């Protein structure tokens, strides 16, 4: 993709995001991709109709840093990322879309199998 920025540790990630926010950037989306052993997180920031994608790979255990003090509208995408992939993020409760009996199941990971209910058809 065009305008990709690859970072390897969290200090670099925070400094790049602060630089983009000072240019007038708006957080567009936070995407998670399952790579098997690790999870790749892509932060998409829009600066004057150009999209910059900042990518970082994180482990499944341990806590990941939250970007809520840089971008004020990051708490709903971070809740969705934490709930769908089972990743812990600092200060985020991790409940948005799933029903209470399905919490903790991390449905978007490849290892989770979903049984498909066919209602009488």
């Amino acid at each position, binding site marked *: *993709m065009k305008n990709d920025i690859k970072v390897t540790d969290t200090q670099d990630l925070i400094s790049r995001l602060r630089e983009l926010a000072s240019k007038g950037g*708006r*957080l*567009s*989306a936070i*995407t*998670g*991709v*399952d790579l098997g052993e690790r999870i790749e997180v*892509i932060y*998409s920031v829009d600066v004057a*109709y150009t*999209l910059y*994608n900042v990518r970082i790979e994180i482990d499944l255990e341990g806590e990941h840093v939250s970007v809520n003090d840089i*971008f*004020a*509208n990051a*708490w*709903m*995408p971070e809740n969705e990322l934490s709930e*769908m992939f089972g990743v812990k993020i600092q200060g985020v409760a991790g409940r*948005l*879309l*799933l*029903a209470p009996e399905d919490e903790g199941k991390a*449905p*978007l990971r490849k290892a989770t199998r*979903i049984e498909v209910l066919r209602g009488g058809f």
Partner: protein
Amino acid sequence: MQITTTVPFGPQHPILPEPVHVKCELEEEKVVSVSFEVGYAHRGMEKALETDYMKGIYLSERICGICSNIHTTTYVNAIEKIIGIEAHKRAKYIRTIMAELERLHSHLLWLGHAGEAVGFENLFMRLWDAREIVMDTLEFISGNRVQYAMNTIGGVRRDITPKKEKMIEDHMNRLEEKMIEIKRDMLTDYLLKRRTAGVGVLKKEDAVRLGTVGPNARASGVPWDLRMTRYEAYEYINFRPIVLEGGDNLSRVIIRVEESFQAIDIIRQCLNQMTPGRTWYRYRHEVSGEAVARTEPPRGELFYYIKGNGTNVLERVKIRTPTFMNLMTLPTILMGLQFADVPITILSIDPCFSCTDR
């Protein structure tokens, strides 16, 4: 000592078109804090879209009923970017006509709901009667009233014959006459102005800080419109985004009326500029790589990220819908309002929860 009352504005309410749970805390009839919950219509679409990429076109259409065509257009744009092909010019014009017709029917639906929320039911009946002209146009072009199945990789599946072009022009003329009368009756009405002016103000700094998109941002003075990136046939069309100052409920009503007239103008420009040509071609591709596509549905900015791994089954599809980001402005605009003004203010950000929950 102040006593705080908690009132739930629940998933079922006569004003809300779709379910959300908003918990308002009141002190002496004024709102002091707000929290909300979503997830009542979650169907797991992102996991279900990891299938054959041709079947995914029909599945992505069924995420939302009001903005169904723009979901397929964005999906097909992302896959065309991965493969490296571009649609024919006539197909781009037809996709733009469908997108603007969809913007018309969505705004007319919302204006009817807004009239009903303040108690002006006659406006609701007149607007939905005018909306039937748009639904008839969509049925004559594509065969269905919702979920049109018009897009495919590389173009559109049905062409617009000269008889259909004449019919679209007649329908747009009839619609414009009706809408001029409705606009005059709506904006000179005393009741609508009293209930919506100065209520639910979103200031310009807050709109920029919270990342609002769509007509909500343009009604607060922020000129963001993703059609200025000139995707599809917008590079040949002459238009500028409409921006209003004010940021209250009345500005959000006026901007949707003005955008409806602009949509009729864009459709007329497309019909004048179209030249005969091919509209689609069809052969198999392999999808390997990743791409991002963004378009402008009636509510804001739609974002699709698609990753393929070389077979015909996709690996990851990520959808970020406009109401997902606009919902985070609710705690700011509901502060300090009387409780009777809460329904019309929640409705004025034009929420679509089937898109949010997917």
